């Protein structure tokens, strides 16, 4: 084994970093890192209490979870709560009665919230592989109970390495159970596996502690509490919270070995032999992230023509091309400034950025100037293998699955550069908007579009009038009973996919209420918001509504839409710190879809047609 890297220590550090990346405050982030330095439960408990007190003070909506378990999870709770504190919200965890996982799963619709299932192969299979068929049926039945509603995270089963060496069939039976669980979960969109089997045989190392198991019915030793909690919460993170969106990378000694400006392209290491193979592997890792919807940005202290020449000359050895990057900054400006400019160009917050650079100097400068950007830090100084490990082990981009929309987003940011060129050539904004040849469509809900709608409802912060994070069940109800509009946008450069939605309800015959109104930041500045509002009002008017009420609920991130309703003719009828209420009479002139849009699909069914 390479003595330079201690796998357990290194993996714990990466696990901590994967969650620390979501803490915006640099001081709190540092404290979070330090909390896991000790493996003593007492220390973890103290840190968890501190983090909980801080989260309560913020007054944000608590993160509510239901834990179903067949073993004593209480011992792991402080470490899990501490790991969850990375998301800055108070945590409320309810434990279902020990062992009653089936009935608790069946009853969870009474109080819907994300659910985590902790179970062990011993309790499903017994200690006899002859029970395999019955155990598989139990698993399939259990997963079918989990289907629908809020997310359910289910542990898979660890290899029975400790027990029953005399019965090798048990090992294969547990493997079969995991395959059955994976197949059932794969067919159930809201169920996600927590890969404990992979954790204990790979990153986590042996976690089983027989003394603890007999004394407390908890299979893990106290030293494993921290790593296990971090692993579980990293999986929850991918299912419940938005991932990072942009990877900004350096070039010299990061994407290839050597310094372009010193020896020219010929002196660079990249390809299939050592040490160029390390950098090629880094490039492949980055390309895989792009395929999953991560936006790539290149930030290098080089001359752009030199960079273009090197990419061209070395193209047969490289996995990445310059075209893979949505933004390229090759100049001599400080990298934090360049990153801030890229964030503005892409219209994304810097909290979505991750920075990979071999240079400790550049990383420290980024930390000092833009602490909100997440840094990937190699364990070993000046070692490209460690640089690759820091990227390969980072789970901050992990999301449930890359949707069509995620992939469209990557191409659209590139198209953004083309749009800027068009704007500079056009005579005024309106001519530019006409030149974009934008096509709008208001879509019927489908399984795919509803997944996108749910993601937008849960992730959109800036252009979001009410920031209501509706559950899937609530969204389904709006589709059935209210006005639910999804808008898709394409232009001459790229398809942007589904970029906004509006939800409205009819309170009584004549009064409609806009519950939610949100738009992706990618689509701003083109009048899509006016078009979406116009369509929403048209549909409400069609069913006899004469007055529409709407609200603006301020958050830390949505100040840009504060005047949205006023700007569209609504009158303010109530106003305090927590909300502003507006009203609009549909008997008067109402907003219309701007003339530069072409509607390309028939409008969705109206409310009366659905009723």
């Amino acid at each position, binding site marked *: 084994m390479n003595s330079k890297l201690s796998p357990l220590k290194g993996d714990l550090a990466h696990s901590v970093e994967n969650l620390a990346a979501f803490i915006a405050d640099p001081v709190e982030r540092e404290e979070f890192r330090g909390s896991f330095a000790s493996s003593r439960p007492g220390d973890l408990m*103290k840190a968890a209490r501190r983090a909980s007190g801080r989260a309560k003070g913020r007054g944000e909506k608590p993160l509510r979870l239901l834990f179903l378990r067949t073993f004593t999870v209480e011992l792991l709770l402080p470490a899990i709560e501490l790991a969850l504190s990375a998301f800055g919200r108070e945590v409320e965890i309810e434990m279902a009665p020990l062992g009653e996982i089936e009935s608790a799963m069946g009853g969870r619709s009474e109080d819907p919230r994300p659910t985590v299932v902790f179970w062990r192969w011993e309790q499903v299979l017994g200690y006899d592989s002859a029970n395999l068929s019955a155990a598989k049926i139990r698993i399939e039945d259990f997963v079918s109970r989990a289907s629908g509603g809020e997310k359910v995270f289910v542990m898979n089963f660890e290899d029975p390495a400790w027990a029953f060496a005399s019965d090798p069939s048990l090992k294969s039976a547990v493997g079969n159970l995991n395959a059955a669980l994976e197949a059932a979960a794969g067919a159930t969109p809201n169920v996600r596996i927590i890969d404990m089997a992979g954790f204990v045989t790979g990153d986590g190392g042996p976690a089983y502690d027989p003394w603890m198991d007999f004394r407390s019915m*908890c299979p893990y030793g*106290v030293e494993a509490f921290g790593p296990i909690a971090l692993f579980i919460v990293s999986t929850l993170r991918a299912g419940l919270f938005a991932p990072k969106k942009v990877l900004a990378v350096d070039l010299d000694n990061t994407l290839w070995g050597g310094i372009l400006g010193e020896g020219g392209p010929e002196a660079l290491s990249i390809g299939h032999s050592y040490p160029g193979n390390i950098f090629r592997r880094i490039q492949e890792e980055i390309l895989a992230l792009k395929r999953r919807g991560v936006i790539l940005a290149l930030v290098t202290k080089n001359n752009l023509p030199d960079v273009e020449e090197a990419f061209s000359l070395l193209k047969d050895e490289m996995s990445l091309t310059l075209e893979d990057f949505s933004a390229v900054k090759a100049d001599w400006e400080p990298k934090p400034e360049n990153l801030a400019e890229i964030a503005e160009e892409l219209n994304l917050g810097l909290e979505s950025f991750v920075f990979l650079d071999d240079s400790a100097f550049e990383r420290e400068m980024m930390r000092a100037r833009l602490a909100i950007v997440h840094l990937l830090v190699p364990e070993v100084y000046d070692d490209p293998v460690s640089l690759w490990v820091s990227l390969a082990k980072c789970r901050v981009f992990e999301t449930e699955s890359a949707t069509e929309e995620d992939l469209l987003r990557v191409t659209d940011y590139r198209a953004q550069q083309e749009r800027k060129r068009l704007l500079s050539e056009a005579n005024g904004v309106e001519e530019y908007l006409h030149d974009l040849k934008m096509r709008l469509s208001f879509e019927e809900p489908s399984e795919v579009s509803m997944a996108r709608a749910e993601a937008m409802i849960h992730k959109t912060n800036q252009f979001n009038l009410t920031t209501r994070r509706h559950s899937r069940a609530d969204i389904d109800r709006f589709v059935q009973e209210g006005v639910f509009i999804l808008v898709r946008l394409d232009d001459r450069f790229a398809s942007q996919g589904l970029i906004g939605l509006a939800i409205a309800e009819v309170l009584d015959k004549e009064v409609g209420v806009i519950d939610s109104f949100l738009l992706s930041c990618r689509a701003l500045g083109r009048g899509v918001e006016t078009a979406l509002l116009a369509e929403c009002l048209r549909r409400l008017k069609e069913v006899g509504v004469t007055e529409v009420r709407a609200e603006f609920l301020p958050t830390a991130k949505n100040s840009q839409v504060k005047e949205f309703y006023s700007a569209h003719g609504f009158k303010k009828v109530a106003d305090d710190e927590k909300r502003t209420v507006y009203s609009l009479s549909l008997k008067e002139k109402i907003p219309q879809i701007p003339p530069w849009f072409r509607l390309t699909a028939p409008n969705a069914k109206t409310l009366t047609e659905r009723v």
Partner: protein
Amino acid sequence: MIEMTEIELKEMIGSIVDCSPDQIRLEMLLEDIPNWDSLATVIFVSELENVCSFILSPSDIESLKTFDSVVKLLRTKEAEI
């Protein structure tokens, strides 16, 4: 083996149950320590074993009734090693 003082023991217990070490007296029943419960017992025993590098038998654990009994058990174990 690391030898623990009474103060270190009190601090260990205090960090587990979130109470001040000053609240723990020698003759005190463990179950009378604020917030003490069966899970605290399990964590305490496990931490004690990790720090002192020994394994407590079921009868050792059974004997842990008061803080004084913890100290006595610890001293016995230290003498055995």
